[in-house]
């Protein structure tokens, strides 16, 4: 449980990181908090020959109020989001979801940018970001671009990030009056989600205005429960159970030692109902 030898470069800035990525090609990996990458390197399941450490770039750890949205620096740690007053107030879903990632030690190291870039469908934050319709700011040698969360995750551990690109910022909306919830189902508190459901629900004159539901670990990427979202749109709060019964539609959850795909589908339905109900009560 020792990684193979590799070279180590410290990125002084985002531009420097992009330069280093270009220099080192496919062999290089970006190191943020290291809590997704180092465990698989220790098992020698990943064997990059160069690590580019983003940890020395100070100006990527922030939460800023940008008026219509909040901007979160890619190197902002889970523990920072957990206790950030602005996030707690304006986008509680992110603070709360961050507080469920791993354990306190992991949250002291792991970052939102690392978590999102790794593209693991079992991670909690990506599905919350989907439900929030967050935007990701990406910088590369070709300049800067902004990608919607819905367009970012492409396949199992694959994202739209090019080899010479760095995710620099995550933009999330202010929730204002919208209700939110994240329901994480796991067997032990420290574990990955067997299934997780993020919900953002806007009320409108006593009924549901719109609902957005993000699903964790229900396929090779984080997913939206689009059928349930449509069914909830304009629905009466008393019909949540019926509307969320389609929450697993269009998903392709895997079967493993924790759950069969059938059980995952069932959990997605139950947790979606509970998440929407909780969001409505907030």
């Amino acid at each position, binding site marked *: *449980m*020792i990684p*193979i*030898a590799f070279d180590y470069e410290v990125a002084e800035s985002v531009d420097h990181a992009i330069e280093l990525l270009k220099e080192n090609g496919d062999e290089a990996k970006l190191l943020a908090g290291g809590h997704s990458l180092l465990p698989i390197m220790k*098992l020698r399941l990943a064997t990059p020959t160069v690590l580019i450490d983003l940890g020395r770039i100070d100006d990527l750890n922030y939460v800023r109020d940008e008026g219509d949205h909040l901007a979160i620096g890619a190197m902002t740690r889970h523990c920072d989001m957990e206790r950030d007053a602005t996030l707690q107030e304006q986008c509680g879903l992110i603070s709360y979801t961050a507080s469920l990632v791993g354990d306190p030690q992991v949250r002291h190291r792991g970052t939102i940018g690392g978590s999102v870039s790794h593209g693991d469908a079992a991670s909690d934050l990506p599905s919350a970001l989907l439900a929030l319709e967050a935007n990701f700011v990406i910088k590369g040698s070709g300049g800067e671009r902004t990608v919607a969360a819905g367009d970012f995750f492409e396949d199992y551990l694959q994202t739209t990030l090019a080899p010479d690109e760095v995710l620099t910022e995550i933009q999330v909306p202010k929730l204002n009056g919208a209700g939110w919830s994240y329901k994480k*189902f796991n*067997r*032990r*508190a*420290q*574990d990955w989600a*067997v299934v997780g459901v993020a919900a953002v629900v806007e009320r409108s004159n006593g009924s549901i205005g719109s609902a957005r539901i993000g699903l964790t670990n229900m396929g090779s990427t984080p997913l939206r429960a689009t059928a349930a979202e449509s069914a909830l749109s304009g629905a009466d709060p008393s019909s949540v159970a019926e509307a969320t019964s389609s929450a697993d539609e269009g998903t392709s959850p*895997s*079967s*493993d*030692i*924790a*759950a*069969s*795909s*059938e*059980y995952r589908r*069932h*959990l997605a339905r*139950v*947790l979606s109902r509970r998440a929407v109900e909780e969001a409505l009560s907030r």
Partner: protein
Amino acid sequence: MTQAPERYIGGGVPRKEDPALVTGRANWTDNIKLPGMLHVSLLRSPYAHAKITSIDVSAAREQPGVVAAFTGDDLAEDWDKNPQANPAAVTGYGMSLDQRVRQAQEGGESSVTDTPETTGEQPVDEKTRTFVSWIPTDDTKIPNHWPVARDEVNYAGDIVAVVVATDRYKAQDALEFIEVDYEPMEPVVDVEAAVADGAPLVHEDIGTNESFTWTLATGDIDDAFNRADVTIKERYLQQRLIPNAIETRGVVANPDAITGGYTVYSSTQIPHILKYVLAVYCDVPEQQLRVVAPDVGGGFGSKLNVYAEEVIALVLARKLGVPIKWIEDRSENYLATIHGRGQVQDIELAATSEGKILGMRVNLLADMGAYLMLDGPGIPILGAFVYPGVYTFDAYDFSVTGVFTNMTPTDAYRGAGRPEACFAIERIIEALAREVGLDPVEVRRRNFYEPFDEPTDTPAGIQYDSMNMPMVLDRVLELADYEGLLEEQRRRRESGDPVQLGIGFSTYTEICGLAPSQVLAGLRTGGSGWETAKVQMLASGKVEVITGTSPHGQGHVTSWSQIAADALGVDVNDVEILHGDTALSPYGRDTYGSRSLPVGGVSVHLAAQQVVDKARKISAHMLEAAEGDMEFEGGRFSVAGSPDQNVTIQDVAAAAYMNYDLPEGMEPVLSEEVFWDPPNFTFPFGAHICVTEVDTETGFVKIRDYFGVDDCGPVINPIIVDGQLHGGIAQGVAQALYEEAIYDEEGNLTTGSMVDYLIPGAPELPKYTLERTVTPSPTNVMGVKGVGEAGTIGAPPAVINSVVDALSPYGITHIDMPASPWKVWQAIQDAQGQEAGTRDADLSGRPSQAADSTDTEGGTDS
């Protein structure tokens, strides 16, 4: 006997072990660094079953920092120096029990060396290399177990090559340069499939996957079943568990230039047994071998063994002449340290319509894994004696077949055979209650023993020492507010609450104090059960106690200090306990099987009493009084009626040390050594109630409360006893709800890390509400019983009974361990006749839940 009015015994003396541990100053095996020390990394087979067609370590030898690399063939001669030398041979394998006993009785040659002469017609297999000591029958099949495999690998994790390098990183890197060609063979990864006709063979040379069959029968079992109004047949599965001591194993072997021998430091529970077996296996003269168990970070049975890596380290130290270190990493720990449990249990009960048990049949398949480890075959046999549990009846019939599979070898994991037994009886008695329409509490009461305090015969042909089940059951019912719980359960059921309440019982006993050597001989354990202690008062009046027990978390340093301090009337801090080093304590039988207090602790008490007896004679001499007039209290001898005439025990110790003026013929110093071999085991008992909340929508089980009333006799240190119960219950809950070693069809361990093997953490476990009663054992003068495994034995059935109770409105009568949310949900789906989907990723190699449910309905033949 009631709790003695001593100064320390029974008090919560804070542990003397703690200062080094809380300040990070303990001496773990991995903290040992010796000059010139080299590090070993081991290449392990990725296949569960394969022929090694070629292996080449030459490229590894060329890597930076690599000093040597060896294959199994390279090292074959290094443990092959003494062809007779295997522990099995030395413990008498090859001779029948009768022969050994007869020979011992005739006072002939020692019965511990197996030669063609001593074994008569039975040939000694000169080629068999094995670590097994407990050989249950004369015809037990014992596979060859090379420390480094030669031609064939038999489980994923079997060692195939060794690299020695200047540091661990370099040793690990070099492993990548070893080239091995394997020819995969069909693996056996299921214990039932292993005994089916035409099953592939784990060891083709043995010709069968059945290692042994061992039976026990009392009473007329057929008559019991003929007379029965009700018979019940159930099948239970004991999943494989992985012990997971937080400190992995590790060993450092250091050549000793002075003696020409070796010192072996190992993270082991059994330095004494290890010393003997290593000496034999590696042909090192035992007097030149010293084994040290430094601070050991948990064992739970997993370090109650002799492992290939210990042999490899010693042999490499001999071969290379330098200190050799091997530290297991966690991936290796999952593969190469023994697993526990792994049984298929077929249980039948015969009973009257009033719920009185008449007889019990038990048929087990016990998964031995690829090889036989030290006590592997004996684990289900230990359990055989407690399947009847805390119930008395007339007829009992037990049979176990040990089965080879291409998986990690199994052996003792906390409880070792007894949790399996307790689970079976405590589950099937619930089925009986259902069958005869009685409350589970009532059916238990109808089968309890009347309280007793003298040895009492059991259906398994042994004698329990003392027991009072109604007392503990009554108390735990009060503690849990059983009536209140029933009321809440009724409410939730009536309102259709998605979260249902479960109330689960377990009433248990544990065999503690693995001891009487003659009984262990009868069981063919290959081990002895005595323990030793030496209590010596030094010139300054301070006390050293040398114990043969080898603690690794149990707090013997504190408890033994309390025992000695009370016996001698000295301050507890004036006592030091020395242990875990065969140079300090040449004799000892180490720590396992909840034996330490009733055997080792009692030895300390007896030795200290002998010191007092001798001191009394000297004090009488010093005060010119008659020995019979001497009174001893609070560390002071005084003459009856003349309290002013007195000497302290420290004064006596000094006088004994100086030897200026002792009674005629008396030897100097106060130093007494005791070897104590008790006449019987001890049997603590208790009653537990587990209260669960089961989310019927998700299948999630939350333990809301856990109540226990336990009786382990008089308690030396209540905080330590509570701690043992807490930890034991936690491991029992872990088996019931969380943990399971899962193999895929190819024999790969799917749950090979702490990410996938679910050891529960603080958020998953409940607060424990515990009380104790005190029923002394007549087996020893202190009345003590032991407590190490009680929680692990009592908890699993309490938890499962609780989950099943919560789900009983669905008609669910059984859920296999671990009762994961998935399984609970599936059981509900099945019960409701709903399509639950297939378990399309059933990697467990076990019958599906749906198939189980038909087995567990409980057939009624009456």
